């Protein structure tokens, strides 16, 4: 039987990180550090969530003037709902080392 989509531990970790600040635009490297996921894991997840309509993205100016724009991401309404459902289904499995430290 095929595993249901979006239930891997890495996906839940990413969803939890994005859902922690649902209105904020997040950058890829910041998500890597927060979730503990390597870029080779994070970006395929971001691509898949975007394809599924759970994630929206846009280019945003960098915080420091003179630096190039950065691609930023945040959950859509559907993505937020999924993140909430995943958090309720497995409350302890979505914690990343960075998130666990922040909560402690």
């Amino acid at each position, binding site marked *: 039987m095929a595993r249901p989509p979006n239930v891997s531990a890495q996906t839940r970790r990413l969803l939890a990180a994005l859902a922690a600040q649902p209105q904020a635009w997040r*950058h*890829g*490297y910041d998500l*890597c550090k927060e979730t503990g996921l*390597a*870029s*080779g*894991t*994070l*970006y*395929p997840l*971001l*691509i898949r969530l975007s394809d599924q309509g759970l994630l929206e*993205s846009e*280019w945003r100016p*960098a915080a420091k003037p003179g*630096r*190039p*724009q*950065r*691609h930023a991401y945040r959950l859509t309404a559907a993505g937020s709902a999924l993140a909430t459902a995943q958090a309720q289904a497995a409350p302890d499995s979505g914690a990343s080392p960075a998130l666990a430290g922040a909560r402690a």
Partner: protein
Amino acid sequence: MTRRRSLAQRLVLHTQEAMPPGRRPWALAMAAELDHIEDDGAALVFALGAVWTGYREGVRLWSNWLRLGRWGVALWTAVLGLGLFYMSLWLQRLPESTEPSVPFSTVMVLLGCAYLGAGWSLMRRRLRLYAGLVTVISTLITTTALAFALGTHPALPWNFYLALLRGGPAPLHAFYAALLLEQFVFIAGLTAAGAFFWRFEGRRASA
């Protein structure tokens, strides 16, 4: 600029080549993100992940790989068929067997026809015809190859099949019985692999 930073930038540039055209914006996103990573070591690790992402997304376009594989196998099969037509002329020089047998050069011609037909059917994605012809080819090849390995006249194993077809008592040697069983297992595996290959390509093409 350090070597690690330079390598990281080259890797991210390569990601844009590896990424499928529809995913290029993501490659640009990863390239832009690299500029905001202060630590060169971290940038290199990030760039390696970007390359992995690029190739992973590229490999997901399996329809391209499967189509290429199918045509490659089909063309190779057709070339083998042509080679066997030539081989049938060479085999006519073998001494005739004293036992009644199927002329071996005829077997090679039939094998060549089967190869050409299998190649054509695979190009046209006709799996049933391909599976049937593969069955014929596998039977012919395995029997002939083992005859050569045993040092016997290659026409002798065919006496076994010929006797079975005529319905008479077959000179059932235990070795040939084992050979027949092995062929069925081989043919079943080859046909199953071909079916998986054909269905998987069809499913990916319709996705």
